[in-house]
């Protein structure tokens, strides 16, 4: 048998029982790798359950800095009897199988191509730890200690992490450190040199942080000046508003101890968005966070916000649909419903962050965008980005930045124009009109906000010409928005390459890795990372420059490809979908395979591509 051998390049999977305290131990492991300067990408693959069902924690260690899911497991820590057989079977040949040997492994676990690492976790804990409750929790720490020996994790990094974690309760650090030592010593005494997967301190990471997207989003809302959040609990978005509340209570207190923010847990998602919209209408910055089922409910209000031109920020942390779907798995499948939410001719501005830093920046900036464009801004995060920890650059803030509240008339301005103003009168020619905030001026500036058809002065109208005029203006505003939203990120590796790839959000990690792998095979592709709808002109230029463009996304129907065709009027034959929608993040392997197969099918490449690309 050839054992898998690698330094800073492997995938380890922890198979646990939900609610058994494994999360903090597994987190301790991933953070130790991160603190040794090695790029690491942990992913929680958890059930829609609080206690008892299987849960996995998958950690990819990649010295090369590839942060997407790789697929396949080189090392399994099997501490869940329910899934042990499958975990054993799924282990890659040459891999390592660490299990609790308090009970012997059944005889039919007879693979010859894996290395067994038996650690009597329960027995060690029963013998060494007297407190029965602690015993159960520390069992997880014992296997982290064993891993420290097996993989060469710097032991001091682990103990420092525990001391930091229990800084306020140092007494709790002691038994944890003891448990680490128990595991470490057992492995040293019984499994000398059995594992050929190693970690080694690296300089790959310097200023980086490791953060979940939802915390970064909540923090972004604080920095963007949000004061009102209406929300309804739903996985995987719940932690966005929880983070916002936590940061608000800490950083937004006035000298009387009162909070400069209001968070309301609403009765449903309809009300959640209504609360955010009411606040924005009244001049505050409001937002809500939800997932697919919430977006479905919010459609009605999104149409109102579009037509009555009310700024609002909506965070959609996408999960696997349709309907209830797989609530604890990821997908990028709310594109259609978000882009065109609500009846009638509506369309909405979407932003696509790809890492926590961008969650922060895009959320913070989205409040300016909403105010400037007077329309909903929907931030399309997903479960993988929102709930998993990601290594990224730290968010920055420019203290000279002033919030841009858009076109709002103040008391003095209303006085000067003597109220000669129309809420929906486009005097600048960019489709964006001036609004007023209730209570501004005693005589001027009041108007009646409505979702029914209205004229320039906001009065109800059934006049066809006036209705058409306002719809045309909203279309003009949509075009104006192109200039306001973040531009795509374009990478041209080979000016002559006929192939381009387009991706967005969490597909980015794996897309970058796939490009490197393809380059090794002499397939040089150029790339464009979408960051917003409406599409910047550069998107069209990129597509026009290439004969074939692969659109990578995580849904069944190739939603982004179809939105590109719909909005950009591009030749459908030229755009080829590269998809994964099994609920787990897309891998570089999946991307490469689909691109290579497509290229094979169209060989000689140029010919087929030209055929499809006739214009």
């Amino acid at each position, binding site marked *: 048998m050839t054992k898998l051998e690698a330094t800073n390049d492997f995938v380890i999977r922890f198979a646990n029982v939900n609610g058994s305290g494994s999360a903090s131990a597994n987190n301790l492991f991933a953070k130790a790798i991160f*603190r040794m300067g090695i790029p690491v990408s942990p992913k929680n693959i958890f059930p829609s359950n609080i206690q008892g069902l299987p849960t996995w924690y998958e950690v990819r260690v990649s010295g090369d800095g590839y942060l997407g899911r790789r697929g396949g497991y080189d090392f399994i820590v099997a501490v869940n009897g329910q899934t042990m057989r499958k975990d054993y079977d799924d282990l890659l040949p040459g891999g390592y199988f660490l299990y609790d040997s308090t009970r012997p492994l059944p005889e039919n676990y007879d693979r010859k191509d894996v290395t067994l690492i038996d650690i009597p976790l329960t027995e060690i804990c029963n013998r060494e730890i007297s407190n029965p409750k602690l015993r159960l929790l520390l069992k997880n720490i014992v296997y982290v200690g064993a891993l420290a020996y097996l993989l060469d994790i710097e032991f001091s990094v682990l103990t420092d992490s525990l001391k930091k974690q229990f800084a306020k309760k140092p007494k709790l650090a002691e038994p944890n450190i003891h448990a680490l030592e128990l595991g470490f010593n057992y492995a040293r005494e019984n499994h000398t040199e059995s594992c050929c997967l190693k970690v080694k301190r690296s300089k790959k990471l310097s200023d980086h*942080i*490791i*953060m979940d997207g939802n*915390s970064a989003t909540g923090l972004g809302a*604080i*920095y963007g*000046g949000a*004061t*009102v959040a*209406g929300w309804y609990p739903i996985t995987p978005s719940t932690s966005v508003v929880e983070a916002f509340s936590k940061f608000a209570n800490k*950083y*937004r207190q*006035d000298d009387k101890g*009162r*909070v*400069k*923010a*209001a968070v*309301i847990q609403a*009765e*449903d998602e*309809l*009300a*959640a*968005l*209504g*609360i*955010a*919209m*009411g*606040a*924005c*209408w*009244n*001049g*505050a910055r*409001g937002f809500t966070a939800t997932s697919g089922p919430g977006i479905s409910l919010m459609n009605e*209000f999104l149409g*109102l916000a579009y037509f009555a031109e009310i700024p609002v920020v909506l965070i959609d942390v996408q999960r696997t649909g349709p309907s209830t779907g797989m609530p604890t798995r990821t997908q990028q499948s709310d594109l259609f419903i978000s882009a065109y939410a609500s009846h009638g001719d509506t369309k909405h501005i979407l932003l696509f962050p790809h890492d926590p830093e961008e969650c922060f920046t895009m959320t913070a900036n989205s409040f300016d965008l909403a105010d400037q464009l007077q329309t909903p801004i929907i931030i399309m995060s997903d479960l993988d980005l929102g709930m998993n920890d990601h290594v990224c650059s*730290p*968010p*920055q*803030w420019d203290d000279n*930045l002033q*919030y841009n509240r858009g076109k709002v008339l103040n008391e003095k301005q209303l006085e000067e124009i003597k109220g000669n103003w129309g809420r929906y009168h486009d005097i600048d020619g960019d489709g964006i009109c001036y609004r*007023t*905030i*209730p*209570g*501004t*001026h005693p*005589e001027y500036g*009041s108007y*009646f*906000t409505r979702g*029914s058809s209205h004229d320039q002065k906001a*009065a*109800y*109208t059934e006049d066809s010409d006036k209705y058409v005029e306002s719809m045309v203006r909203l279309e003009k505003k949509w075009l104006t928005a192109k200039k306001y939203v973040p531009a795509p990120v374009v990478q041209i590796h080979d000016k002559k390459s006929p192939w381009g790839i387009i991706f967005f959000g969490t597909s980015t990690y794996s897309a970058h890795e796939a490009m490197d792998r393809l380059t090794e095979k002499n397939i040089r592709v150029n790339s464009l990372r979408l960051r917003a709808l409406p599409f910047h002109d550069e998107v069209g230029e990129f597509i026009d420059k290439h004969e074939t463009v692969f659109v990578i996304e995580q849904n069944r129907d190739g939603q982004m490809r179809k939105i590109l065709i719909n909005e950009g009027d591009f030749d459908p034959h030229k755009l080829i979908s590269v998809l994964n929608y099994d609920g787990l993040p897309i891998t570089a392997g999946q991307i490469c395979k689909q691109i290579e197969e497509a290229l094979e099918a169209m060989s000689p490449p140029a010919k087929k591509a030209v055929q499809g690309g006739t214009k």
Partner: protein
Amino acid sequence: MTYRRPTFRHPNLPKNDLGYTKRDYEGGISTLCAGCGHDSISNAIIQACYEMALEPHKVAKMSGIGCSSKTPAYFLGKSHGFNSVHGRMPSIATGANLANRDLTYIGVSGDGDTASIGMGQFAHVIRRNIDMTYIVMNNGCYGLTKGQDSATADRGSKSKKGAPNPFESIDLCELAIQLGAGFVARSFSGDKQQLVPLLKAALAHKGFSLIDVISPCVTFNNPDTSTKSYQYVRDHSEATATFDFIPLRMEITTTYDKGTTTPITMHDGSIINLYKSDDSVDVTSRRAAIDALEEHREQNQILTGILYISEEMRDTHEILQTCDTPLNTLTEEDLCPGSTTLAAIVDQYR
């Protein structure tokens, strides 16, 4: 269409404490049917706001969808209004109130907008105790879609269509009391004497106040067989007690015999004097208030007036402990913790 009212008025119209005439509280011309109860309620709102000398631009008018929800266009033309979507006014009002606690919020809704499509939001805006006055213009039917029964139509009541309503009705006042509203009243669009002081007291109340105003639909639900018709309501209503509302600014000149009046001091210092008679209802007791509603219902009587009042509840801002300054006036300086703090925060993620 929205029609503007002619601006000509008698030059010597009386003025309130702010120097405004009643005209300053009017809105566009109503497009509702002639004789609609809703127009009388709009006029009562104009009268109440004028008498209370509210600054018109410091009032925000919130509504949903339906005949009732159109009325904010017909009163307080100097106030901002928000005609939202069907049944969702309470959430919009919640957000607006959170953004600026200093304005007066008047929500206008109908029985369809409140008791059917908007029941969820109605229940929860009460639970949160948003500081607003919620007026239901209750005609027991869907006027804009030509007279279908609504959820407040009494069982057996017959609208113009002639078929008795087979379903149980919802008593919004009883529900509001159960859900913890601090001010609950019922009135009749045809009784301006009662409605105007009720509106004034509701506006002075800190926290959520509900006034369910029975407002006959002259076109679809006004035959004598309907329990929401002018004739029926006039014949079957009984008030809990008569009362006076004495706004804060007004000097109290009348004295009352002890034992016959109960003064209730409102949050802003205004006073409601309830005149008790032997058989009057104790409107400060939640249980007695619900009993009274049930008893009158059994006797086919409509109980009107203040049904329940409690001045001890905390509104949403007090519950959430939000700052005194309206959130919509806060600036970067108040809201953004800055780059140094950000550096410290992100350091926790290393």
